[in-house]
Every structure is written in structure tokens, then in C-alpha cells.
């Protein structure tokens, strides 16, 4: 019994060690987003609260916490409160299998990629539940759009993952990174990397695919009725899943914690490289938001089903064929 309690305590401490920095990253990602958007608009961005506006996320968080939680009268209260919790929990739970550096991972499981895929495919529930429980038109329409969008783009993400797994010969994330020691997969699988990046924009409901919260058409989509703490959870969940998708892109295509070719002499610790690469992908997320107008819904669906799906399917077949033809299929255990 004592052993079990000790194990639980130890695991809790490890989880906190992972989640607390992650939450700090989420907070500062919001600041980074405002700064990047400001730079794109040739403004200064937040610069009043603290030096260079560095305390702005704390002020924002505090403001959110101090607001009143409004639950609509006709809403389904339990589901309404549960929805943001589901969203937020799932976006944190996925981090259990992310190898931040060599041997620095909470759970080094055999099927890490599938776990990530499973978690990201469940993220849609937070949004559907929110839309349904709000008992209001715009949230419901936003939730339906969002569910269709996320389910559609998961298909191509699935094929991208299959391609990478074919090349790496393992479903374990650490093994996938190790398989990239010779060459990062972004080089041989560039089209798949692009498909993955665009699909991850759609999967996290980010611009230019932020149709679920299309403010011009749907007020704020699924989050219309939410306020205060509950809204904050949606907000943080969205940013945490952005970081998660970037981390996934880093692991699948940019060689995880491996140093840039030719810079091994710097001897930077692995997690620094991991953080730098993830930050680069996050910057792309923000850059895209500052640059591109929002897609129309039918265009979004067209790209997902008629462009990405055939393209990624063809690339899976091509990769498998090439690996068999050159006898390069990875074996091992």
C-alpha cells in the first residue's frame, strides 16, 4: 500500500514537472502571438504591463479569473462545465508521451504515435459538448463545423503518420526521433511535412481555418456562451494543443531533440533543440494567422478531402513502394 502511495506521489511530481512549464509556455505563447501580430501590423503590441509587456499574460489570466462565470439558464449544466475540462485535460494528457529530450519522457510507450493520434481525435468532444450543452444556435453551428473539420483533417494526419512510421519502423516516438539521426524526415518527406503542418492548423482550429469561431458568421462559435474560468480553459486548451501539434511536427519531421546538422560541437542539451524547433513551428502558426485570410467552409472541406487525402494516400503508396524497391524497409524488433 505504501509503495502504491509512493508511486502515485512520484508520478504526480513528474506530471507537475511537465505541466507547470507547459502552462507557462501557454501563457507566453499568447503574448508571443500578440507580439508577432503586432510586428506584422507594424505596431508595438502589449508593452505596458511589466518590461516589454512580459507580465501581460499574468494580468490577462487574473482578469479572466476575476470575472463571473455565467451559465445560460437553458444550458445543460453538467455537460456545459465538463466540455472545457475535457478540452483542457486532453490537450495536457497528450504530453505524457512527448520525448522532450533523449530519455526525458514521462511514459515511453510502444504505441506513442497512436496515443497522440487517439488524444487528438478525442479533442473534438470538448467542442461538440460545448456546442450542444450551450443550447444556443451559434455554438451549435460552430461545433458542427468544427467536428466535421477536425474529423476530415485527421484522415490526412493519419496518412502522414503512417508514412513516417513506415520510414522509422516503429510506433515509439523516441525510436522515430532516433531514426532521423542520418537525415530529418522533412527532407525526404517534404510534401508530407507541408500536409501535416496545414492539417495541424485545421486540427487546432487556427487561422486560416478558424471557422468554428468565425466571429463574422458565428459570433464566437462554440465558445459564444462561455465566460470567465470556463472560457480560459478553452483558450488555454487551444494554445496547449497548438504547442502539442508543433511538438508532434518537431518529432515527426524535424528530428526532435537532435541538433541541427553541423552544430553538434555546440553541445546544447537536447531539450533546447526541441524547444527551438517547436518555437519555430509555433512562429509559423502565428505568421500564417497574420498573413492569410480565413477560408470559406466549402473550400476548407475541398482541400481536406479532395486534395490532401489523395495526395497523402498516394505518398503512402509511393513511400512504401520506394522502401520495398530499395530494400530499405526498417526491420528490428
Amino acid at each position, binding site marked *: 500500500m505504501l509503495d502504491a502511495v509512493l508511486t502515485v506521489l512520484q508520478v504526480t511530481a513528474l506530471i507537475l514537472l511537465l505541466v507547470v512549464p507547459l502552462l507557462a509556455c501557454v501563457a507566453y505563447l499568447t503574448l508571443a502571438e500578440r507580439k508577432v501580430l503586432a510586428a506584422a501590423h507594424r505596431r508595438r503590441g502589449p508593452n505596458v504591463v511589466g518590461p516589454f509587456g512580459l507580465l501581460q499574460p499574468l494580468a490577462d489570466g487574473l482578469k479572466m479569473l476575476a470575472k463571473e462565470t455565467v451559465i445560460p439558464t437553458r444550458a445543460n449544466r453538467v*455537460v456545459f462545465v465538463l466540455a472545457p475540462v475535457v478540452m483542457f485535460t486532453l490537450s495536457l494528457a497528450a504530453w505524457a508521451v512527448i520525448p522532450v529530450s533523449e530519455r526525458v519522457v514521462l511514459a515511453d510507450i510502444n504505441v506513442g504515435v497512436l496515443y497522440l493520434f487517439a488524444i487528438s481525435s478525442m479533442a473534438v468532444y470538448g467542442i461538440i459538448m460545448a456546442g450542444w450543452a450551450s443550447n444556443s444556435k451559434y455554438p451549435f453551428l460552430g461545433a458542427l463545423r468544427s467536428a466535421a473539420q477536425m474529423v476530415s483533417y485527421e484522415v490526412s494526419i493519419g496518412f502522414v503518420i503512417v508514412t513516417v512510421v513506415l520510414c522509422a519502423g516503429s510506433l515509439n516516438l523516441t525510436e522515430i526521433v532516433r531514426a532521423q539521426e542520418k537525415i530529418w524526415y522533412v527532407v525526404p518527406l517534404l510534401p508530407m511535412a507541408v500536409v501535416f503542418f496545414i492539417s495541424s492548423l485545421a486540427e487546432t482550429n487556427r487561422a486560416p481555418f478558424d471557422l468554428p469561431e468565425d466571429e463574422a458568421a458565428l459570433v464566437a462559435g462554440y465558445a459564444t456562451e462561455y465566460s470567465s474560468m470556463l472560457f480560459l480553459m478553452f483558450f488555454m486548451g487551444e494554445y496547449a494543443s497548438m504547442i502539442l501539434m508543433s511538438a508532434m511536427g518537431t518529432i515527426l519531421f524535424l528530428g526532435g531533440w537532435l541538433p541541427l546538422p553541423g552544430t553538434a560541437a555546440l553541445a546544447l542539451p537536447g531539450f533546447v533543440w526541441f524547444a527551438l524547433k517547436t518555437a519555430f513551428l509555433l512562429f509559423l502558426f502565428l505568421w500564417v494567422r497574420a498573413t492569410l485570410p480565413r477560408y470559406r467552409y466549402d473550400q476548407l472541406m475541398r482541400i481536406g478531402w479532395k486534395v490532401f487525402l489523395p495526395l497523402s494516400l498516394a505518398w503512402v503508396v509511393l513511400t512504401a513502394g520506394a522502401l520495398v524497391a530499395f530494400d530499405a524497409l526498417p526491420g528490428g524488433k
Partner: protein
Amino acid sequence: MAAPDLFFWLCSAVLMLSSVFVVSARSLVHAVFFLILAFLNAAGLFILLGAEFLGMMMLIVYVGAVAVLFLFVVMTLDTGRPGGSLRARLPAALAAGAILLLELAFVAVAGGPGGSPEPLPGGVSNTRALGRLIYTDYAALFELAGAILLVAMIGAIVLAHRYRPGVRRQNPVRQFVRRQGESVRLEDPAVGAGVSEQGR
């Protein structure tokens, strides 16, 4: 009590309870939510059994895709509870339950079709073992299952697809290859004549 045992009892208890709620919930949407909870716990049981691949597939396929569709249908139709009293359905329900129970008892007594599970040959993860089996010994059956699913999909599309005349579709390729010369023409109409569609 060791941690796996604890998780086993937790998962099975929640699984049983949520299965009961699936049947007894008043709102259909709630029933689907409980069904999802049951799927999640079934996945947990698979993982505890060491079948992590099946567990993840349970999450991806059932929770991530099938239940989303259920939820979609139930939410958009929102029919409420199907009519008719529970008592009228009781005999059929009991019969179905009895058949399932008999099958389970049979499996428990006979030890399943393949006897007790064998340990995996040294050092092979069960995902890899499963893959080897499916793509070698059972490749034909696997392909057949795929073909059946394909037929079902085509059937659903044929049944649901309507041809609607008069829909103006966007053709992005044509939009991209369009050039200024084909789409804009400059006119210099005579005074009082105006520009007409036909007149050039």
C-alpha cells in the same frame, strides 16, 4: 493492492456502470456520452491486458470516429427517447441478453477458440506480432474485410447522393488558370450606343 489491480477494478466498475446508464439514460445524447465513457474504459482494460495496440485502436476508431458520428446523428435529429414502453421490449431484450451470456459462458468454459493466449515470441511487441499475423497468415481475410467496408461505403454514398441540377460549383483550377485577357474586355462604345452582351 497493486496499481494494475486498482486500475482494473476502476475501469471495469466504470465500464459496467456507464453501460447501465447507456440503456437507462433519459436523453439520447447522454446515452451516447455514457457509451463513449464505456469505450474509454474498455480501451483502458485492453491496455491493462497488455494489448496496447487494440486499446489505441479502440480510442481512435470507436471514440474518435464512430461515436462522433453517433453524436452527430443524435444531436441533429434530437428525437428524444424512442416511443413504446420498456415492458413491451423486455422479452426481446432478455433473449438477446441470454444469448450473449450463453456465449460468454461458453468462451469461459471452453477457453476461447484458440485456447489460452500464448506468450509472444521473444522480444516482439504485440503491435508487430499482430501486424505480421494480419499481413501474412490472414492477409486474404484482411483484404476481404477492407473490400466489404468499401462496398458498404459506396452503398451509403449511392443511397444518400442526390443529383441536384442548377448548382453552381466553384472550380479552383479554372480560376487559377484564368488570365486577364479571357475575362476582361475593354470596350469603347459609340456615344448613345452602349455596350451589349453580343455586340463587339
